[in-house]
């Protein structure tokens, strides 16, 4: 009974955030169709990848005719943040078979991480963290897949002349601002952004990967400097 309660608590905790998940998933579905993917490809990608920002990145790179390997590398880079979530949640998701760990890991999303971790940190009473996480992650996964399918069905009705591809950089922009926590992260973003503009002419969109790496390096050293001066801000 304990187990069921934590599972339901997790799903309940995830409920409010569906307001953000559902439209974002629908946009991803619409965008997939807008770059020429078929319905089955759209659903297949949604299930295989299940990471909206990286899917939008792939669509943008598809629409500008980037090479295959650049799309793969860029999508991985965008999803590297999951290692942080995975490392942070790991202590709560132990004493499970490898297959079950793999299932929980597959469902990991920004939202499931945020909801679960904030609940785990705030809750003193005894609970099964694994079931709470599973409840929130599963609800988000199901809502995401259904919404992406609805988006893919609506996609053909959206005219391309509206410049809908502009929704990609706009969505990345909101995610970017959410990632700006302190001065070093701002420096990382400014460095990455400016170098990406300067390196735009490099072949095969390699400027994107270069700019990301240099942005990370800049943020890292900015933080090292602030440690030396004894402040984080």
């Amino acid at each position, binding site marked *: 009974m304990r187990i069921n309660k934590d599972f339901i608590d997790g799903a309940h905790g995830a409920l409010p955030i569906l307001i953000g998940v559902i439209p974002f998933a629908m946009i991803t579905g619409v965008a997939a169709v807008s770059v020429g993917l078929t319905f089955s490809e759209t659903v297949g990608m949604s299930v295989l990848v299940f990471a909206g920002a990286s899917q939008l990145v792939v669509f943008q790179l598809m629409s500008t005719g980037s090479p295959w390997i650049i799309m793969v590398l860029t999508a991985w880079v*965008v999803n590297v943040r999951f290692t942080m979530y995975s490392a942070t949640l790991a202590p709560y998701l132990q004493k499970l078979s490898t297959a079950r760990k793999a299932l929980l890991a597959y469902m990991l999303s920004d939202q499931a991480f945020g909801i679960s971790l904030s609940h785990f940190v705030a809750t003193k009473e005894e609970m099964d963290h694994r079931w709470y996480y599973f409840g929130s992650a599963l609800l988000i996964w199901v809502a995401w897949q259904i919404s992406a399918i609805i988006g893919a069905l609506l996609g053909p009705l959206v005219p391309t002349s509206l410049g809908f591809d502009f929704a990609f950089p706009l969505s990345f922009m909101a995610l970017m601002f959410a990632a700006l926590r302190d001065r070093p992260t701002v420096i*990382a973003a400014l460095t990455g952004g400016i170098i990406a503009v300067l390196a735009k002419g490099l072949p095969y969109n390699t400027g994107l990967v270069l700019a990301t790496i240099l942005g990370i390096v800049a943020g890292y050293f900015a933080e090292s400097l602030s440690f030396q001066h004894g402040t984080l801000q």
Partner: protein
Amino acid sequence: MSAISIWMLFLAVGLGTFTLRFLFIYLFGKIEMPYWLSRALRFVPAAALAALVFPALTHPSGHLDLTLQNFRLLAGLGGAVVAWRTRNVLLTILVGMALLWTLQAVFGM
């Protein structure tokens, strides 16, 4: 792109992404993430997303355009204000798209 290379793309992105999600849940208690790596990873979202956003605004049709004729740059700056104040993906998209359509309707063509 051919159907095969599209599915290979999804498979490669999906498998890589799964590995990123699974790695440290699986390795917990077996190996620790090096401190420098966890510090560096913190900057990935900011750097990668900025590297995507900036050129999309400054190079709307493949070449640098910093003039007032670049509606995507103007609408993007408006969207940036919304993103900065709200950090809300949906609201940023709505305001940015509305600005772009308004600029195109009033000054475009």
